[in-house]
């Protein structure tokens, strides 16, 4: 019999992180290659509602492990509970979203399960009768194919790389395989963390509503190189209607731009009509924050910048010289049209 594929559910505050459904799609693609059934595993204190939402959405068997006191994610508790549960279930693949939770959990869990660990998976491919994965390296400039030599693999799935598993799709594709498993199984486990304790979830940085309302976002990345060039990028936003200024994480870390202006996985997710990426390398952590934009222009002096893979128009130029020329070209054309 084929071994199963377990999907670990990422949830917080009673909400399932939508990236879990993208990890579920990856699990479906793995199943198409290796077979087996898919199980959803959810951990928490009171899971009746979450478990039924998961069941409704996927029609897959759900194992809901209720641990008293587990009100939010705890690495120590998750690793302890899952290593014992998964040792029993012995899934061939353990999938989860490459969220801060998945990134925290997967490597340690893989060590406990004697499993391979592949993080930030962006596609599932066939490698003979086995599965291999592709993932980004070198800031997204390279896509690497990873194959496995272990019996078990713990895989984190990059948010934004897979479609979310749609309720209908799940039902159609699993109607036969899981028809006899119309169930949610609740288990109770006691697990008191010994080496760590939660101090709760706190408010961090507020978001800037200007980003969600702007028609155009002009964003700067590490490639701007200096604060003077950053000023140039700010000036560039003047040629656009209803434009907001944003940045990728490195500039916020440098203190050059306030964190509420950060676009990306750990910042704002935006979808303006036009996104102008100035000196942004295009690491997936940034790209997932702007992929929904209508039209994307990338300006970067590095012709190999990963950002160009997500751009409609690519300009390989140095920002410090190109932006003044661009603003000048806009002025000339604006003047030209005024004379018409």
């Amino acid at each position: 019999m084929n071994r199963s594929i377990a999907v670990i559910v990422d949830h917080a505050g009673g909400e399932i992180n939508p990236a879990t459904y993208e990890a579920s799609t990856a699990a479906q693609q793995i199943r198409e290659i290796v077979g087996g059934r898919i199980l959803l595993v959810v951990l928490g204190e009171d899971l009746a509602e979450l478990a039924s939402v998961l069941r409704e959405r996927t029609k897959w068997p759900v194992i809901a492990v209720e641990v008293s006191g587990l009100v939010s994610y705890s690495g120590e508790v998750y690793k302890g509970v899952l290593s014992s549960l998964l040792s029993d279930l012995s899934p061939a693949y353990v999938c989860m979203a490459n969220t801060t939770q998945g990134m925290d959990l997967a490597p340690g869990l893989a060590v406990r399960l004697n499993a391979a660990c592949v993080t930030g998976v962006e596609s599932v491919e066939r490698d003979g009768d086995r599965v291999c994965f592709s993932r980004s390296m070198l800031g997204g400039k390279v896509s690497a194919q990873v194959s496995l030599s272990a019996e078990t693999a713990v895989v984190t799935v990059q948010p934004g790389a897979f479609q979310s598993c749609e309720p209908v799709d799940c039902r159609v594709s699993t109607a036969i395989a899981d028809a006899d498993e119309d169930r949610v199984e609740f288990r109770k486990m006691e697990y008191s963390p010994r080496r760590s304790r939660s101090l709760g979830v706190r408010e961090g940085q507020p978001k800037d509503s200007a980003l969600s309302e702007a028609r155009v976002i002009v964003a700067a990345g590490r490639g701007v190189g200096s604060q003077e060039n950053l000023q140039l990028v700010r000036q560039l936003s003047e040629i656009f209607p209803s434009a907001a200024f944003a940045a990728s994480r490195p500039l916020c870390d440098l203190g050059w731009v306030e964190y509420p202006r950060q676009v990306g996985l750990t910042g704002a997710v935006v979808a303006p009509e036009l996104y102008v990426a100035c000196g942004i390398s295009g690491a997936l952590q940034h790209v997932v924050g702007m992929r929904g934009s209508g039209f994307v222009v990338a300006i970067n002096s590095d012709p190999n910048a990963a950002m160009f893979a997500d751009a409609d128009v690519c300009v390989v130029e140095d920002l410090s010289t190109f932006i003044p020329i661009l603003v000048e070209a806009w002025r000339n054309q604006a003047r030209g049209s005024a004379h018409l």
Partner: protein
Amino acid sequence: MDHYEEWIRSAALSLFRMNRFDECAVEEGLRVKESFPESKVDAISVGPPRCEAVIRRAMGMGADRGIHILGDDEPFLPPLVTASRIAARTVSEQYDLFFAGVMSEDGMNGQVGPMLAEMLGIPCATSVVCTRVTDDRKAVQVEREIEGGYRDALEMALPAMITVQSGINQPRYPSLSHMLRAKKAAIETISSDSLPQAAPRDAVTRTEPPQRRRSGRVLEGTPADKARELIGILRERTLVRW
């Protein structure tokens, strides 16, 4: 090795310097040392001979000792193997705290820190943006950056592993006096072959350019040509002001 792989190799080599997240990790370790002056900071790196420069930089920033687990040039060394080599060297030491970057800039796996913690049997927090060792020196309180602008706060008993997210601090530049000392200081060098280590469970089997997700029209000509064309494209779409 095809043309593309060669390009990756040279790109990786030209990039060779301390990982930015690790700079933050060294800085955070040095700040703990400043709060507890009797403590010491060791900088440990796994890799080929060129890693020595990175270890010396860490010592230039203020680390007391450097330890180099020397291997051949092993591109795409699985994080499990890296972690097991560090575990083999550090298991007998009485370290209270381990700091690592949340991920490397080249491999972007984010695995070495949490795997090492598991191998040593100590608690671990990843993506940390704030740390504080308690006054009794028995625990560390941290905040992990999580989705939606929130932070997950927890306390871990020492010894503990912390992987730091960028932005946690502004790493200092090496000081001249530290750099002079670092230049002369001996670095403990251990051959990775001499250490017990995990067998790899995964391998990078192919590399290629990232897939295009948009049309990616590349503008040609002089900068002025490109600027005119770009303004034209944006005007057609009424995306610039008139």
